[in-house]
């Protein structure tokens, strides 16, 4: 299979897996809380329903309200082309590196926040304000974590990082890598709106950040946004998985290697999803003004990661 | 050779006599006065042309009068401001509130004032120069209290007292200089001639000439408004009629500085520049400091301009001590300051007539009330602040350059800091007058419109000096550096 075909394949695999991942995490959390919970494939049904439903748009909203879902969804899908989902010699490795990934996600958050503000409801305003605050505070951690990784691997391009960790397994257990892993894990919780920062399950005004922005959406726009959110979760898990523990990622583009890559990817996503489910069942939601402490803790982790990576 | 001198010195006397005889209110008297004011300006230009052709015209017994480059420049300045005063002084503007007798008194003594300054500047004999400068104090003191009030009487008393005491000390210096010369060469009729003193300077005794220069510096420094002898200047300039303060601030300070430059040349020839430089830098920096800090809190705009004169005189005095390039910058600054300050005082005269109050807080919206006067006032402000395109930018730049070239880095740092303080305070005060809404009850419109035309000429001259100094002026300044710059 030619490398240029790998891009769309990776994108479609990601699109297929994402709702399942969210469903699986919800299902695992329910099981941990002794509830039956909805089946893992529930999100697929929701998406199908939403795509068919009628769209209701607020009279205050402008064209931006209708364009934002496409930009958010598009930027997240574009990221999947850059992230080493299945195979390492990525076709678009020259086009973008880890910094581009972070900033594409920030572009998505930017337009989501604007869309939240547009209908003019106080929920949207609150959600946008809090989302941008969290995103802004998460930026320095991501930057330092990237450079801790990049310094070890000699390049910020994701394919190169994964390839280097594959080539020298001892790198994986270097303190720099572990600290970077922890830092990015905390940022994942913050960015994808998981529990300690934001409660994905409820619509309670006080606690919701991500939900507040998509409150006004309905029909196919809501479907796109939900899908994009699920995709974002998948991307972060892939970063955690394939950059730090890249075994199982296909090195040659043979169908057998790719199938094996998909299987190992599913395994990793399951493991990380279980970890998140565990975290969410044991930790209550932090008050908004305690979130910066969490993020500064992750910043310190990233700082240590950078110092560890260039000291050793 | 006597014609240029006569056309230079006689007209002011004739003007004084004419003003005495003719009734001041009649237009003919005013026109005659103005005409007689312009003649010496042409004579001065003629003399400058002669000097540029290599002549140094002399006249009178034991060549009492001699015009070299320095004298020509100062004569030009004096006659220019005298012409302005003749044109714009009391007795012309429609909003005149001077009585005919006051106008007559002003014209007589203003002409005498101009005459004495011209004599001081063209006299070769140092004694006659002293007499002329003493006479300037007397002539100007009479018309400081033109409108008698408690403040103007007080100002005039302090002016005459401090001025006379200061000048007396200068005479002590002159006598000591003469004494030093006589003990070496014996009594000669032309002994007090500057040229003779310069020729025999190397022979003079250092301790005596240094003592003489201290007295000279304190004496003429009082007339030049150098600190700590400057205290009479703010009072005199703010209480005197604006035309007179323009003359005093513009040229009287320059004439006193001229005297110091003359004696400095003699002392440098005798003892070398180090002694006089140290004194000039000390006094210059002190004047700059006191004036700059005094500008910060000021309530009246004429006092503000007076302190600004002290600041610029201090700067010029400092410039003299920074080697040949410094003297060049100081002389250029002298011409620029004369133009800018006399223009500003004439404008403040018009503002005082229109707004009726000398307080800065009572004057606002000047650009709206009197657009031309306001515009020129703003131009004058920018010139005094030393911003391009006006001449002061160039002279300040050259002065600071001379300072750095002479290795006086830290001195120049102090000067720049003080100039910055003066800059901010002058800007703040004058901006409060230019902008904002016009107070109620103040008549809008320009009033005596053509009265502004000569001032526009001043501003234009400043711009010319700012962008490309004309060749003759350059030549004149270079000649001066040869005379006084060593």
């Amino acid at each position, binding site marked *: 299979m030619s490398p240029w075909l790998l891009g769309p394949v990776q994108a479609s695999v990601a699109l297929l897996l994402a709702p399942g991942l969210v469903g699986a995490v919800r299902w695992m959390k329910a099981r941990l809380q002794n509830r039956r919970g909805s089946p893992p494939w529930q999100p697929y049904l929701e998406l199908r329903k939403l795509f*068919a439903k009628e769209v209701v748009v607020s009279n205050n909203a402008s064209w931006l309200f209708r364009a934002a879902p*496409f930009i958010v969804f598009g930027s997240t899908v574009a990221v999947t082309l850059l992230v080493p989902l299945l195979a390492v010699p990525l076709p678009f490795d020259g*086009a973008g590196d880890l910094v581009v990934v972070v900033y594409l996600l920030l572009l998505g958050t930017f337009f989501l926040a604007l869309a939240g503000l547009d209908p003019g409801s106080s929920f949207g305003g609150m959600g946008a304000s809090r989302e941008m605050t969290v995103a802004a*505070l998460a930026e*320095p951690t991501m930057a330092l974590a990237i450079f801790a990784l990049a310094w070890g691997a000699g390049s910020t391009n994701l394919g190169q990082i994964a390839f280097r960790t594959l080539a020298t397994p001892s790198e994986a257990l270097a303190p720099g890598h572990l600290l970077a892993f922890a830092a990015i894990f905390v940022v994942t919780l913050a960015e994808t709106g998981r529990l300690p920062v934001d409660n994905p399950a409820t619509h309670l005004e006080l606690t919701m950040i991500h939900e507040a922005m998509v409150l006004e959406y309905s029909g196919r726009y809501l479907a796109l946004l939900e899908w994009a959110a699920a995709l974002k979760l998948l991307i972060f898990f892939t970063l955690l998985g394939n950059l730090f523990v890249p075994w199982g990622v296909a090195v040659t583009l043979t169908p057998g290697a790719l199938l094996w890559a998909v299987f190992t990817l599913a395994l990793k996503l399951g493991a990380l999803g279980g970890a998140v489910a565990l975290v969410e069942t044991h930790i209550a939601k932090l008050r908004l003004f305690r979130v910066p402490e969490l993020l500064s803790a992750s910043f310190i982790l990233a700082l240590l990661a950078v110092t560890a990576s260039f000291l050793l | 050779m006597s014609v240029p001198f006569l056309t230079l010195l006689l007209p002011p006397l004739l003007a004084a006599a004419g003003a005495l005889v003719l009734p001041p209110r009649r237009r003919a008297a005013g026109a005659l006065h103005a005409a007689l004011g312009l003649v010496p300006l042409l004579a001065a230009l003629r003399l400058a042309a002669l000097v540029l052709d290599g002549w140094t015209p002399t006249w009178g017994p034991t060549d009492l009068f001699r015009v070299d480059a320095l004298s020509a420049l100062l004569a030009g300045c004096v006659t220019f401001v005298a012409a302005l005063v003749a044109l714009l002084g009391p007795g012309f503007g429609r909003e005149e509130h001077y009585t005919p007798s006051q106008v007559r008194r002003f014209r007589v003594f203003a002409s005498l004032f101009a005459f004495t300054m011209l004599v001081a500047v063209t006299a070769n004999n140092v004694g006659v120069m002293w007499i002329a400068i003493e006479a300037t104090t007397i002539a100007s003191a009479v018309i400081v209290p033109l409108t008698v009030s408690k403040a103007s009487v007080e100002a005039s008393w302090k002016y005459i007292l401090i001025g006379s005491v200061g000048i007396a000390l200068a005479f002590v210096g002159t006598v000591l200089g003469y004494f030093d010369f006589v003990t070496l060469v014996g009594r000669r009729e032309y002994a007090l001639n500057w040229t003779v003193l310069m020729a025999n300077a190397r022979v003079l005794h250092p301790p005596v000439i240094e003592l003489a220069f201290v007295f000279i*510096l304190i004496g003429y420094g009082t007339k030049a408004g150098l600190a700590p002898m400057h205290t009479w200047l703010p009072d005199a300039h703010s209480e005197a009629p604006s035309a007179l303060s323009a003359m005093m601030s513009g040229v009287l300070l320059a004439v006193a500085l001229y005297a110091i430059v003359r004696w400095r040349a003699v002392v440098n020839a005798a003892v070398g520049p180090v002694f006089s430089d140290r004194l000039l830098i000390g006094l210059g920096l002190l004047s700059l400091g006191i004036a700059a800090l005094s500008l910060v809190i000021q309530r009246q705009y004429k006092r503000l301009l007076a302190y600004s004169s002290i600041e610029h005189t201090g700067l010029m005095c400092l410039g003299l001590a920074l080697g040949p390039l410094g003297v060049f910058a100081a002389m250029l600054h002298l011409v620029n300051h004369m133009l800018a300050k006399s223009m500003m005082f004439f404008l403040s005269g018009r503002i005082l007539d229109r707004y009726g109050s000398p307080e800065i807080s009572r004057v606002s919206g000047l650009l709206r009330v009197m657009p031309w006067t306001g515009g020129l006032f703003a131009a004058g402000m920018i010139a005094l602040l030393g911003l391009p395109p006006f001449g002061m930018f160039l002279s300040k730049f050259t002065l*600071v350059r001379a300072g750095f*070239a002479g290795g006086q*880095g830290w001195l120049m740092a102090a000067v720049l800091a003080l100039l910055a303080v003066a800059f901010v305070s002058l800007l703040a005060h004058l901006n*409060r007058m230019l902008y904002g809404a016009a107070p109620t009850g103040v008549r809008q419109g320009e009033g005596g419109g053509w009265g502004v035309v000569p001032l526009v000429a001043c501003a234009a001259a400043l711009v010319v000096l700012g962008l490309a100094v004309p060749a003759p002026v350059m030549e004149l300044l270079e000649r001066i550096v040869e005379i006084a710059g060593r």
Partner: protein
Amino acid sequence: MRALFLLLVAGYASGAAAALVLGTGALARWASALGAIAGASAGLALAAGACVWGAAFSLDAPDLLGVVGGMAFRLDALGAVFLALTSLVAAPSALYGAGYSRAWDGRPALRQVGFMLNAFLLTMSLVPLADGTLTFLLLWEGMSLSSYFLVMTDADKPEVVSAGQWYLAMTQMGFACLLGAFLLLQSGGPGSFADLRAAADALAPGTRDMVFALALIGFGSKAGLIPLHVWLPRAHPAAPSHVSALMSGAMIKMGIYGLLRVGLDLLGGGPAWWGGLVLALGAVSALLGVLYALMEHDLKSLLAYHSVENIGLITIGMGAGLLFASLEMPAAAALALVAALYHTVNHAVFKGLLFLGAGAVLHATGTRDMNRMGGLIRGMPWTAALFLVGSVAISGLPPLNGFVSEWLLFQSLLPGIGAPSPLVAVLMVLALGMLALTAGLCAACFVKAFGITFLAIPRSPEAEHAHEAAWSMRAGMVVLAGACVVLSVGAFKIVPRLTEVVAPLVGLPVPAPSFSVGWALQTPGGFARMSPTLVAAGLGLVVLAAWLAVKTFASRRPLRVGETWGCGRVVQTPRMEYTATAFAEPLRRIFAAFYRPSEDVSIDFHPDSRYFVQSISYHSAIVPWFERYLYAPVIARVRRWSERVLALQSGSAHAYLTYLVAALVLLLGWLVVTGQR
């Protein structure tokens, strides 16, 4: 080339003359605008000539200002970049100005704006060409003075006058330092830059440091680096919008040009602490700039503080460049300087666009306060879309040019982490953290700026009836928005050009290593590759594909418009919306240690019962650190000295005479004492 130079001068001069002569109507406005545009395009052509085709240009005019050695002009690669930048912002601003200055029709202020704008553009375009101390300083002062008059156009408002005074005072302080720096460097010799370069090597290290320190203060105050930035958030909002665009876009860049010219070209680099200091100042300016911007709810002062932030980013790049040059890492230094130059050009373009947008909003609604705007996207669709482009660009988000230069900045800091001395590494890591935080906060700030101003429900009648800007204003903005896209997509062509500009400064061989391979940018040693072209294309493709997919597969039921959901209350009023202050409230609370906010809430209850509230007024203010703890004490001390000196003028004649006699006695005493030896 000489013809282009003369065309540049003639263009601006004719624009200025037209503004003066042709009265105060539309004719005058358009004539001066066309003159300015002609001058700007000549400038652009001149710069392109020097930058792209490498044609040298130099002109000596010894008779002009003969008294002090005459004026000299020379255009080299570094000057060409800044000339291009100035002209690139000048043309659209002038076009925009033609429409915008209709507000002054029939008033003398129009003449002042027209004349001063052309004078300002002329002096600013010639500053990068100056090749002698006096030429540079004269043009520098001319630029400051003409921009002062532009700031003072509507000077009947007292805060505009005080802004003007702050501005001119600060510029004058900066000029005094520059004067000191250049004259120390010249130390008596001739004034042309070539002589300065020769003299620089002979200078003692102490003097070189002094020259650099003075130049840093002088140029830093013009660029708006913390703590010399206080004039910027006062002067920019006070100036007409197209002037603020020029000041923010091009004028403060002259500070950067000056630092590069003196720091690298004339002095030829220096010890490591130069770069470290500049880097630290840049990082602090970036972070504090964005923090102050977050708290602003006046649109133009928000943009002004963002200028401080972006200047901070540029200075980080420059500081890193200086540091690497002193640590003998020429490739890394070149990359850092290329990043700085690229961000300078980018900032000129998108900040110009944002200020023009803010001007259009001010023109339409008559207010700058964001809490009284809202919903302008309906009344002003063009301006909203263009302001959005500017916001995305300034926040450094991918498809546009802001992202490219911020990516370069990130990558240029990276080699520093591996630098030999640990202090440099720590500095780089901290700068990196502050850079990332600044980028994040900048995105948050512009969500607030765009969202509160253009989206949701109009908060005041003026916002409701806002009308679209005139076509000339929109044309100006469209040009700049286009430039944003071109600068992003064409990055792989522009970066090599900038590298050629920077190479001689850091001592790289002339065929400098180009940091671009095919369509992608590549950092030295192949450390990181990114192709803005591909990212933009890919993003566009994917969004289009998503839109098509949804259009074909999803239901084609018509869109229904309904009421915004509000938990069942009756009507949606603007007071229920988030305001700018509310949006920034979480960040104010998080950074409370820095802001130290003071909030006072006054509630007046309904007369007959304490449980019903008639009105609540909420006012919060943050501590202006620099004004209160740096400038106020200095001013207070100068006033105290002044009072003490004025006590000398006590009014008593006897005291005055005592001063005179005391001076005499002191001098005589000094004479006698020195006489002894």
